[in-house]
Structure formats: structure tokens, C-alpha cells
């Protein structure tokens, strides 16, 4: 039985991720929990997140999820989603600056407001809606997903991984909103996306399906 844990640290609704996972594979054993034992016993982990980073990190630390993720990254596939992805970096600019888990070197920055696109139209923040993801690196998680497919995004902050340092992640997906930003990154066992696969219809469901069979290798 494929034991999948969606890590619940009290931030927002995680049922949609769970429902989408069960939709792509009815035979998984799914738990939505913060329980350390269940996280340690799982075959694979989903690390979602919505809301403000300061509150997220406070709960992540209180529940020692940071420590559990640091252990888990050596052992099993992990999928980070949205704020879950952002929390994997060193630091976020949100809420006047928050130290994050630091699985990867890099920062989380805000889209600047008042920017205009090539047609001189105002770019709104949050970046909300369906945008293209260019697959900048061949990865098993992109299996059966056409390059430059559109996924659903809703976020005001984006990650800027430092790819020159040790332990740095690889940028595997890139999108453009005023400028290019990292919309997916990966490292051994970890795949993290800024968009919401659970809300991205068939492409998103395919990504979740890929995750359920991914062995964590590139």
C-alpha cells in the first residue's frame, strides 16, 4: 500500500489535495496529519501550504515539521506545493522577513506592484490564474505533461533559489510574470512547485499521478 501523508500544520484547507490524490489513485492510503510517527512511516509526503509565512513557520517549528522534513528528504519523495515550496528555502521577505526551513539555499521575494506588461497593462498582484510552465530540466515528474502546459497559480511571493551554493536545488520549471521566475525546483527526493497541481485540472492531476509512482530519483 502506498502510504501518502499530506502534512497538516493548520494552515488552510488540505482536503482538495487529498481529494485530487484519491481521484488519481483510489488505492493509496492517505492521511492528512501532523503526527510525527505517521510522517516518518509514510512512503511519500506532500508538503502544501497557504497563508502568511510567519504563521506557517511558527506552526512548522512548533510541530517540528522542519526537522521531520530534513530527515525525510534523505529517505522518501516529497512534493512541496505553493507556500510549502517557499518554506523550503532559507528566507522569505514576507511579514518583514521570516527565516524558513532552509532545505535549499535561496530566498522568497515579492512581485513588485505597479509593473506593466508588454501591452502597457497593469500586472496584478497576486499572480492569479493559469500560466505556462516551461520545463527547464528533464524530470520524471514531468512525465506525460506537455512542455509549457498551463497550471493554476495564486501567489504574491516567488522563490529565487541560489543555484551556485552547495546543496542547491535545480530549477526544473520556469514561468514568466513581468519577469521569469522559478515555478518548480527539484533535488534528490524533493520536487516543489509554486502552482497548485490539485487545482490545475488534467495537467495537475497527471503531476500528482507521477508523484505517486516517483522513486525520488532524477
Amino acid at each position, binding site marked *: 500500500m502506498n502510504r501518502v501523508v499530506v502534512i497538516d500544520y493548520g494552515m*488552510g*484547507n488540505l*482536503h*482538495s489535495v487529498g*481529494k*485530487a490524490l484519491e*481521484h488519481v489513485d483510489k488505492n493509496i492510503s492517505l492521511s492528512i496529519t501532523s503526527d510525527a510517527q505517521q510522517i516518518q512511516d509514510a512512503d511519500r509526503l506532500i508538503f502544501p501550504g*497557504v*497563508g*502568511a509565512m510567519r504563521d506557517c513557520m511558527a506552526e512548522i517549528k512548533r510541530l517540528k515539521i522542519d526537522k521531520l522534513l530534513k530527515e525525510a528528504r534523505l529517505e522518501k519523495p516529497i512534493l512541496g506545493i505553493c507556500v510549502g515550496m517557499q518554506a523550503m528555502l532559507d528566507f522569505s521577505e514576507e511579514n518583514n522577513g521570516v527565516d524558513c526551513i532552509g532545505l535549499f539555499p535561496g530566498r522568497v521575494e515579492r512581485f513588485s*506592484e*505597479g509593473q506593466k*506588461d*508588454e501591452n502597457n*497593462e*497593469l500586472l*496584478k*498582484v*497576486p*499572480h*492569479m*490564474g*493559469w*500560466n*505556462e510552465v516551461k520545463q527547464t530540466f528533464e524530470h520524471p515528474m514531468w512525465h506525460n505533461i506537455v512542455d*509549457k502546459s*498551463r497550471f*493554476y*497559480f*495564486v*501567489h*504574491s511571493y516567488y522563490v529565487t533559489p541560489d543555484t551556485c551554493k552547495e546543496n542547491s536545488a535545480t530549477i526544473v520549471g520556469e514561468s*514568466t*510574470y513581468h519577469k521569469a521566475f522559478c515555478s518548480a525546483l527539484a533535488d534528490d527526493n524533493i520536487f516543489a512547485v509554486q502552482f*497548485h497541481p*490539485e*487545482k*490545475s*485540472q488534467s495537467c*495537475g*492531476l497527471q503531476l500528482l499521478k507521477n508523484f505517486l509512482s516517483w522513486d525520488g530519483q532524477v
Partner: protein
Amino acid sequence: MSLAKRIIPCLDCENGRVVKGVKFLDIRDAGDPVEVAKRYCDQGADEITFLDITASSDDRETTVHTVEAIASQVFIPLTVGGGIRTLEDIRIMLNAGADKVAINTSAVLNPEFVKQAADKFGSQCIVVAIDAKQVSGEGEPLQWEIFTHGGRKPTGLDAIEWAKRMVAYGAGEILLTSMDRDGTKNGFDLALNRAISETVSVPVIASGGVGNLQHLVEGITEGKVDAVLAASIFHFGEFSIPEAKKYMASKGIVVR
């Protein structure tokens, strides 16, 4: 390429059925919300908006079950509005599977509620729905006022100022309905949409008045909005979502 403009079919629901009135009268039955939502999702709708127009609050249970049923079959964003009055109402809807909630009358009655909601759940899931009506006369500078209770009750609030205030309070998106146009099929109030979309930093969804596909195009190109919402043209089979997207793309609009 860039962010696609969104097409959002809207399900106005009463007692668990999709209905659509013309200026809130003459309500026609348009089907089971779960089936309708699933059909739109399969056709390529970018989001679904579910507005509960049930008059009494007794039937909230029905709404929660419907939202749960939609969310377990539809894997695109779902916004739920109608009767959202407390933080607990929001929590229930998010737990039922809504991605965003639309707050309308409660924001007017208690603007701080929007602030509390955004603080608690994050701006990304707080949509403020604004029902506006033109109040300026011919020859006067354009002005719109916020109305509640299905367009019957004036509030004295200027629509542009109100939109700015709601965004400052943490609204992550504005759902803007022209009460003059709603149900008329004469097209969006483009001046209203443009005035607000060019003023606020968050995405604006145009609503009220769509009668044909050119209206959707005008909402984007002239109303300058980020998304267009329509109900009856889709419900009664006049146009399909793929037809709408094809037409918009032919006019140079980026769609999914």
C-alpha cells in the same frame, strides 16, 4: 507568453439547484450544480463560482454538501459566495472544498470583517464581491455606488473608493457586478470595470450583462479586467466554453 485571461462560469444556486434570474426575477432552472460544474470543468472553464442565493439561512447544509460534492469532482479553483457572514462561515466553506469565498453584504455592514478574514485565512482566498450601480446623470462625471440586497439598497459608498478600501483591507480579488447590466445581456459596464481594474492592484472579475462572446472580449480589452464571469449564456447552451475561448483567442486574447 503570459498569464491567461480567465473565463469563469457562475452557478447561482437556490435550494440546491442552478438558477439564473433576469434582474433577479423570472428564475429559470438550469440544472444540478454538481453536474453543471463538472461539465464546465471538462469543457475547460478556468474556475467555477458558486453563488448561493437561497434566501433563508436554513438551507446552509444543502450548500455545504453541494460545495463538497463539486470539490470532490472538479479540480479547478472554486469560489463560493452568498451568506458568508462570519469567520466560521468561511472556515466551513474552505473545509468543504472552496478555494475562495466571496464576501458581499457582510463587507458593507462590517468592513473590518474583510480584514479579519484576510488575516486569518490569507488574502488569496478572500474575494470581495461588489454590486455597483451608476448614480451619475447624463453629462456628469461617471460615478457608481455600492448597492446591497440584490441591488435594492443603496449604501452611499462610492464604488471606486470602496474597492480601494477593500484591497487595503486584504481582499485578494474583486468580483465586480454591474447591477445596471446584470441579466440584461447588453454587455459589461466597461467604464465601471475599467475604472476599478486600473485603480486596484489585485485581479478584477467582470460580471453582469454578458449576452454574447464579443462582450467577453470587450470586458478584457476595454474593461481591462483579468477574468470574465458569465452565467446564462453558458447555462442555456447558447455558447460553450470552448467556443468562448476560441473566439477570445481569435481576438488576440491569451486564453488557456
